[in-house]
């Protein structure tokens, strides 16, 4: 007894042929996302009949480099085995004769090559007026239809090896897509052209012209210099914490156990974590550039692996301004964002506050970051001593802004139009002190909470926030932002 609501605006099939696409799959694969699920899976060839107009859309294959992307996997398996059990590996290797090795290779290499070739040969993708269709699978066929008007973000990523080979990975983020729904790999130029075309179609350009629209011009908003990034990492507690753990814990373990394996087993992950939080973050956030284009927000970054993210206008659900304790003297902040169905989370790794706020004004049009926040009433100290001072709330006519944290301050902004539901909670101790929490739920599965507000204020806030979120949507951009 389940009643799915019809899709919101823009979801009405535009041409008759669209209606032939099986819609049930979307509801069953990800019922939580409900009608917002855009990736429709049917795993059969039935969708072929849904092509608009006459002939089928031109199907394309991925770049011929694709079969080689998993070529390292068998090598890694053997290497892993050798590291895991060195004695036995050596024993096996010495027993191996040249002929056995040759026979093994003669069977294994063509087999792997055939598998790689076939999986590449049977993967097709096509861009239709409203969808990106990916058809894949040799034995188990799988067809994903990704609706372009439900697009939340587009990422073009290039791991180091892919950069050497001149190829790139293209991923469309819609709610409910999984890792299989990315196009890996495409030629570098092809990936850019396809991204431009998909964005043009998603923006609402006519299908005939979308091909020629080309890349939208980008206006650079912000660039993070490597020096600033390095200093910001040095001033981050997590970097030092993980480094200290990696330096202190293994010697302590050595004194306690005198076992090389224990030390290695704990020391290596700790060292890895320390590397990831310092060098890894530097490499990942190197050359961070934020740009603005008619297609939306452009975020490019990376030293070895390059990533180019595009977030179309109106897709950002929440923005967080994080201010670690040691950055406060320098006036630096970090800005994070949440987009539904997307793993992108950082907007600006480090920037002076004014510049970060100007970037936020571009991301959320018409939003000014509230400068003064109201603290909870003094009696909230009975519920949460000392730390109650860290909480704050400000509601402007465009955003709901809540701050938390005393040392590492974090201010979350939610545009009223993105609020899905509002909740008020109050426990017994809080009722005694006449305070309550107000939660605001957003579509990116993030909840922003204004904690320890005065009970009457919270009740008023609950009502007024529901009204604001309802009316806020009316002025919001349509899903097809250029139409």
């Amino acid at each position, binding site marked *: *007894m389940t*009643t799915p609501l019809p899709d919101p605006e823009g979801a009405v099939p535009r041409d008759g042929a669209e209606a032939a696409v099986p819609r049930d799959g979307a509801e069953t694969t990800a019922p939580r996302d409900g009608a917002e699920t855009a990736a429709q899976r049917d795993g059969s060839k039935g969708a072929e009949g849904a092509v608009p107009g006459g002939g089928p859309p031109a199907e394309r294959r991925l770049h011929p480099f694709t079969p080689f992307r998993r070529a390292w996997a068998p090598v890694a398996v053997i290497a892993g085995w050798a590291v895991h059990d060195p004695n036995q590996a050596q024993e096996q290797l010495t027993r191996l004769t040249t002929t056995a090795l040759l026979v093994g290779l003669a069977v294994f290499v063509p087999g792997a090559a055939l598998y790689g070739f076939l999986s590449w040969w049977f993967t097709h993708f096509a861009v239709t007026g409203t969808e990106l269709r990916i058809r894949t699978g040799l034995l188990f066929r799988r067809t994903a239809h990704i609706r372009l008007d439900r697009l939340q973000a587009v990422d073009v990523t290039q791991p180091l090896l892919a950069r050497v080979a001149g190829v790139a990975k293209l991923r469309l983020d819609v709610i409910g897509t999984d890792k299989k729904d990315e196009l890996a790999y495409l030629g570098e130029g092809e990936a850019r052209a396809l991204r431009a075309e998909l964005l043009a179609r998603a923006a609402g350009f006519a299908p005939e012209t979308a091909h020629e629209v080309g890349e939208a011009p980008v206006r650079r908003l912000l660039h993070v210099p490597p020096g600033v990034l390095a200093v910001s990492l040095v001033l981050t507690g997590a970097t030092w914490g993980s480094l200290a753990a990696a330096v202190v814990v293994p010697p302590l373990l050595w004194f306690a156990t005198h076992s090389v394996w224990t030390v290695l087993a704990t020391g290596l992950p700790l060292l890895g974590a320390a590397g990831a939080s310092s060098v890894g973050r530097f490499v990942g956030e190197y050359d961070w550039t934020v740009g603005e284009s008619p297609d939306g927000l452009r975020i490019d970054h990376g030293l070895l692996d390059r990533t180019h993210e595009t977030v179309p206008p109106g897709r950002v659900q929440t923005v967080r301004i994080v201010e670690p304790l040691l950055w406060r003297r320098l006036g630096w902040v970090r800005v994070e964002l949440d987009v539904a169905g997307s793993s992108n989370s950082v907007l600006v790794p480090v920037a002076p506050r004014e510049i970060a706020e100007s970037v936020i004004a571009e991301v959320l049009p018409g939003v000014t970051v509230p400068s003064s926040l109201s603290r909870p009433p003094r009696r909230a100290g009975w519920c949460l001593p000392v730390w109650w001072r860290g909480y704050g709330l400000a509601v402007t006519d465009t955003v709901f802004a809540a701050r938390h944290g005393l040392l590492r301050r974090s201010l979350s902004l939610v545009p009223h139009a993105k609020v899905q539901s509002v909740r008020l909670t109050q426990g017994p101790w809080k009722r005694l002190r006449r305070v309550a929490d107000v939660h605001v739920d957003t579509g990116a599965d993030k909840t922003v909470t204004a904690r320890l507000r005065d009970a009457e204020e919270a009740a008023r806030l609950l009502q007024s926030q529901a009204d604001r979120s*309802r009316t806020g949507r009316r002025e919001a951009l349509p899903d097809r932002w250029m139409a």
Partner: protein
Amino acid sequence: METGTTEIAGAEPVWTGLPPGLLRMRRLLLVVWLGLLTIAVGLLTGLLVAPVWAAFALLPLALMAWGWHMLGRNWRSWRYAERADDLLISRGVLWREETVVPYGRMQLVEVTSGPVERHFGLASVQLHTAAAATDACIPGLDPAEAERLRDRLTELGEARSAGL
């Protein structure tokens, strides 16, 4: 259908309570399970240890009385209101929670009914929005009312639809 409708003057929403069926079901379940426990404790301690120890059977009995009272309080605390543009759900005695869901944000309306609930002629309505944290559920409704609510919410959701 008996619903404890209370109307408050002014701009206050029109609250609807839950029908007594849910309370009856919960109390019956409580009495059955704790009744069995009382008998088991009483018999086991009385027969195996000493008759005096059978007094321990009073413990589940006290729990039953307390639970009886608490279930009533909890049941009375549940209420919902259909307003022009949003649905209000209020619940909880010690841990109070009030949820507002604008109709336009509803993605899915579900009516569910388990075997025990069906026997008592009850159904619950669950609302889903694009946010997983939205926990909007109205339990223990009369099936006819649950279906009316589902249809009305779907209709209103269609009219005010507004996605992400």
